[in-house]
């Protein structure tokens, strides 16, 4: 089981859980388990084409999965997945 940390504003879509333990051999499988368990999270994380929203980053422990094997990154028991947005701006 891997632990997925749920950001505060998304807990309303995850029965108020701040984290959830899920099965899955890869990041994609764990995220599929997450959105199966909490279908309302899907719209927050993925667009209508099923692609991860542009501002969503996923970290496996302390590493950005973009620099690993993206959503094919293997997940081991005891790993932690974090969902972190990209944020920038300017006048």
């Amino acid at each position: 089981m891997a632990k997925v940390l749920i950001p505060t504003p998304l807990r309303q879509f995850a029965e108020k859980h701040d984290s959830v333990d899920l099965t899955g051999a890869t990041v994609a499988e764990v995220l599929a388990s997450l959105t199966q368990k909490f279908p309302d999270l899907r719209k927050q994380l993925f667009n209508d084409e099923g692609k991860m929203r542009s501002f969503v980053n996923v970290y496996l422990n302390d590493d950005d999965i973009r620099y690993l094997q993206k959503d094919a990154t293997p997940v081991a028991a005891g790993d932690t997945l974090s969902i972190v947005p990209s944020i920038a701006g300017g006048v």
Partner: protein
Amino acid sequence: MIKINQTAWDAMVAHAEAKFPNECCGAMIGSIAGDVKDVTLAQPLENAYSGAQGARYELRPEDLLEADKKARAAGLDLIGIFHSHPDCDAYFSKTDLENSCPWYSFVVLSVKGGKFDHANSFLPNAEQTAAEKEELIWPKS
């Protein structure tokens, strides 16, 4: 509604004024009860934008992850993001909108001539096409 306490507000304004004429950025941490978000801690973060920072800011996701961990460890929540607009009003710009996320409150501090002038809070949508203004309460000095 988002309420910012004195300690957090002082840290936000100090960071915004210290970084003037550049934009500053940071995380707002606290707790949520019903529709009220109480910010009790402001965590200044580094503006990681690689170009001129007078009109741009960028948060490193790793820094935000660390802020979230810090909040969780203290039994608090990451509630929002703040940044400054140097010599400019506290509106939510096109650049802000196109690089936002719908999960957090975004507080913009206007700093004019190096001194805080006014602030507003915004809630962007998931499509990054619109941001609703949110009631913001800060300690008036």
